C-alpha cells in the first residue's frame, strides 16, 4: 500500500520536472546574450553601482552633507567637503564634495544612502559588474561615479 503511494508521489514529482525540462528557458542568457548588456535584464528598482547626479545646470547635486555616510551601515562612504568659490563652482550650494569615495569591498547595496540624501544626489545605478581581483580597485572615487555632463544634454 505504502509502496504504491510512494511511487505515485515520485511520479508526480518527476512529471513536474520533465514538464519544466521541455519548456523554453527562463533564465537570462548572461553573459552570452545579445546587446551591450550581454543578455542581462534589470528591474527598475535594481540597486547597482551608485551614480552621483548633476542638476539641470550641470552642477553636482551633492552638497557634502555627510548624511549618506552617516546612514551607511557598513561605513563605506568617505567624503571630504570644501566650499565653493565664485571662480570655482562645483555644486549649487555653499559646499561640495571634494572627495567622495565608496568602498565596494564593504557596500552592501542597502540603499540607505539614497534614502538619506536630501538632494537626490546619490542614486543606485544598474552597474553590477564590479568584481575584481584587486581589492583596491573596489574603492570608487567621485570621478568613477559622477554622471558625465554629456549625458545630461543627451537626455
Amino acid at each position, binding site marked *: 500500500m505504502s509502496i504504491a503511494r510512494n511511487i505515485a508521489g515520485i511520479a508526480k514529482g518527476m512529471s513536474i520536472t520533465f514538464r519544466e525540462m521541455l519548456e523554453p528557458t527562463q533564465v537570462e542568457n548572461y553573459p552570452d546574450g545579445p546587446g551591450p548588456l550581454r543578455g542581462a535584464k534589470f528591474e527598475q528598482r535594481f540597486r547597482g553601482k551608485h551614480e552621483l547626479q548633476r542638476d539641470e545646470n550641470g552642477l553636482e547635486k551633492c552638497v557634502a552633507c555627510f548624511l549618506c555616510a552617516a546612514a551607511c551601515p557598513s561605513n563605506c562612504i*568617505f567624503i*571630504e567637503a570644501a*566650499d565653493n568659490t565664485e571662480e570655482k563652482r562645483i555644486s549649487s550650494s*555653499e*559646499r561640495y564634495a571634494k*572627495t567622495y569615495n565608496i568602498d565596494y569591498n564593504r557596500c552592501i547595496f542597502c540603499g540607505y544612502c539614497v534614502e538619506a540624501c536630501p538632494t537626490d544626489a546619490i542614486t543606485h545605478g544598474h552597474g553590477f559588474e564590479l568584481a575584481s581581483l584587486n581589492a583596491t580597485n573596489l574603492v570608487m572615487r567621485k570621478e568613477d561615479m559622477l554622471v558625465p555632463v554629456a549625458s545630461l544634454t543627451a537626455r
Partner: protein
Amino acid sequence: MPDVTFTVDGKKLTAPAGTLLIEACRKAGIEIPAFCYYPGLSLQAACRMCVVRQEKVPKLQTACTTTVAEGQVFTTESPEITQARKATIELLLGNHPLDCPVCDAGGECELQDMTFRYGAGESLYTEAKNHREEQKWSPAVYFDRPRCILCYRCVRMCGEGMDVWALGIANRGSSAIIAPNGGDHLDCEQCGMCIDACPVGALTSDTYRYKTRPWEMNHVSTVCTHCGDGCKVTLGVRQVDDGAEIVRGDNRDKSGINGDFLCAKGRFGFDFVDSKDRLTKPLVRNAAGTLEPVTWEHAIRVVSNKLKEIRDSKTENGGGSSIGVIGSNTGTNEENYLLQKFARTVLGTNNIDHIRTTDYAAFVRAMAGHEHRAASLRDTETAKAILLIGGNPTEEHPLLAWNIRTNFRHNTARLYIATDSPIKLERQARQTLSLPVEGYESLTAFLSGDDSALGEIENAKTFREAVNAEESLLVIFGQEFRGAAIESLVKWGLAKENVKFAYLGDYANSRGAADMGLSPDLLPGYIPVTTPGAFAEEYPNLSTQPGMTAPEMLDAGCRGELAALYIVGSDPVTAYGTDPAALKRAFVVVQDIFLTGTAALADVVLPAASLYEKAGTVTNTFGDIQLVKKAADKAGVKPDFEILVRIAGGMGADVKKLVPFGRGSITVPAVTAPALSVDFVPTPRPIPSLRGIHGDLGQSRGAHSGEADRHAVWLAARGLELRLSPFDPLAALDEIERLVPSYKLDRLNLFAGNDVHSEPGFVPVASLTAPTAAELILPAHDGLFTSGVLGDHTKALVELNSYQESISQPVAEAAAD
C-alpha cells in the same frame, strides 16, 4: 540665600531662593528648551521657548526669568506648552532657509533639535522666503542672516562677556537684524565667542565653514598652545588623505579651567600644524655645507655618535661641560623633565637653560614655605578683590581678563589696577593708579607705608587705603617684576592675611619649563644643584656645579669654548641676537617644528611634533597643571620625548634609568593627592614588591559602550598604571610626582581633564639661595593675534593681525586730527 522647596512636574525640588527656574530644573535633570537664555549672560526673554505653566498664574511664564520661591508649582511639559513651543518654532521657521544639509550648525543646531522634538517642520506660509546673501564680517566671522533667530546671545556675549560691544541690533520689529559695529565689517577682538554662543548656524567661522560636519570629527580636548593661561580647547579633528587634520577649536562643553572661553588664538590659531613650512624630515649638514634630508635612523646616529664622542673626549674642549642644552617654553612638563635629566645624567652637564620669559624662580623662592598663597586661575573668577599690578591681561592673558570681567559682573569684584599705561580692564576697575614706567618697585614700598616712595601721584593715598582695607586680596603682577622686586612685593602681601599671588608669564609651558628644572642652577622643583638632596641618589654622576645660562652658552659657543649645543623647541640665536657665523665651530643640534634662525645654522635638524600632536601635561602661569592629548597627526615628525629617548639610547645610556617603564616601574608616591574626589581615601603605603603586577591588558581594561573603565580609574587614582613603553611620557610624570615637591597630583581629576593646582609652598625654604639675574628675563609680550614663531606660521592669525591693523588705521588718524 535660604533654600526653598517647590514642585516641578510633580517632583519636589530644592534650590536657593532666587535661583532661575531654568537653572534649578537643569540641575535636577529636567530640560527646558531655551534659545535666548545663556548661562552667565543677562536675561533677554526674547524667544519664548522656555515657557512653563505656573499654578495660579493666568499665562505661561518664561522659565529663564522666573525665580523660584517657596511652594510654587510648575508644569514643564503638557499639550498646552508643547503647542506654544511649536507655534514659536513655526514663527521662527517662517523665513528660515532650512538648508540644514549645508549649514555648519546641522547636527548640533538647537533650532534643528527643537524642530525635531516639537514638529512644525512644515510652514503654513505660502510667501516666498526672503533670501539674503551670506556676509563676511571679518577674516574670522561670517554671518548668514536668514538663519538668525534673533536670540541676541551674540550681542550679549560680545558686549557683556567680551566687553567689546561690537555687535548690535539694527532696525526694529520684524526687520530687526544683527549688525556689526563697522557697518559691513567687524572691528573687534575676533575671539569668535559670538560664533560659539549662536544656537544656530547664523554665525560661522572661516576656519570651519563648510569643511565637515560635527559627527564626522573626533573631538579631542587638549590645552591651547599659545599663551600662559592654558585654556582647555576641544579640537575637532578629521581624517584626511595624509593623516589627521584639525578643523575646529572650541570648548562648547564648557569644561575645564576656561568654561566656554577661548580667544582668537585658541579658537582659530591651529593651522600652523599644517603649515607648508613645517619640518617633516630630519636634516643633516653635508660636506657641501647644506642641510640634506636623511632618514631618522641616520640623523639619530649622527647626533648620538657625535655627542658621545664630545662627552667622552678628554681634551680641553671636551667632556660634558662643553655641551650646552637649551629647552623650550612650549614643550610638555615630561619633555622638559626628560631633557634636563638627559643633560644632567647622560651628557653630564649642568649647562641647561631655556629662554626665560618670566622670573618664576624668584617667585617660587618668595613663596616657598607659604602654603595656599599661590592663586589658581580659578581664584580670579571668585576673588572678592583683585589688585593688578602691571601686565595687560586683555592682550596678553585673554582668559584672565575674561575671568576678571565675569567676576566683576557676577560678584561685583573690586578691581584695583596700577600700571604705567592705561589698559582696557580699567573699565571694570574701582580705582586705578598710573605709575611711572620705573615705579613698580616703589609701589611696593608705598603700599607698605613709605609715603614718599611714589612721589606725587594723584589718588595714590586713596588707592592705598582702599587696597589695604580689603579683607582678602588677590595680587596679580606682571613681568615688570623680577628678582628682588618680586620678593619685596610678596613679602608685603604675606604679612597680611588672605592675600594670594599670581605671576603672569608668557607661553603655554614657561612655568613648566622653570618648574621642571631647565635652569643651570636649579633642579626640578627649584632644588639647587649645589644641594641636590634626593636627586643625588636618583641622578648618577650629577655635578653640583651650576652650569652656564643660555646667553652664556651662546657666547661660549661663539668663542669656540662650547663643542656642542643641543636646542629643543626654541630659537636663542634670534632671541639673543647672536651672530650665526660665529657659532660655526660648535656642533649644533636643533629639534623644532619650523626652520628657525637657530635651526638654519644647525648641523642636524630634527623635525618635532607640536603640542597638538603629542601627549603629556603642561602647567599654566598660575601653576595649574593640565593634561595634553594628541589631536593631529603629521607624517615624519616625532615628539621631543621620543627623540630624546632615542638619542640617549643611541649614546648607550640605560634607557630604563632615564624613563622608568616596564616591570617594577611603579612606585607609589609618598604623599597622596590632598583632595581626591572619590569615596575612598588611599593610604600612602609602599608596595614592597610589585612583581605581582603585570600588564593587566584586556579583561577589565578598555571601556565598552560608555561604561566607565573602573579598573583603569582605580589604577590611575593610585598611580599604578603600568608603563609599557619608553616613549610613554606619563612614565616621566610618575617620576616627576615622586621627586618634585610641588607636583603632588590629584590624578583622577587630572586624567578626567580638569586642572590640578601645584603648590609652590611645598618647595623647601632652606634650600633656596641665589636669586636669578633679572636681565635674563625676555618677556614675549604677544598680543591677541601674535604668538612668537608659532603665530608667524599660523595663517589665520597672520590674516587677523593684518586685518585688524588695516581697519584700525583710519580710526587712529581720525583721533589724531
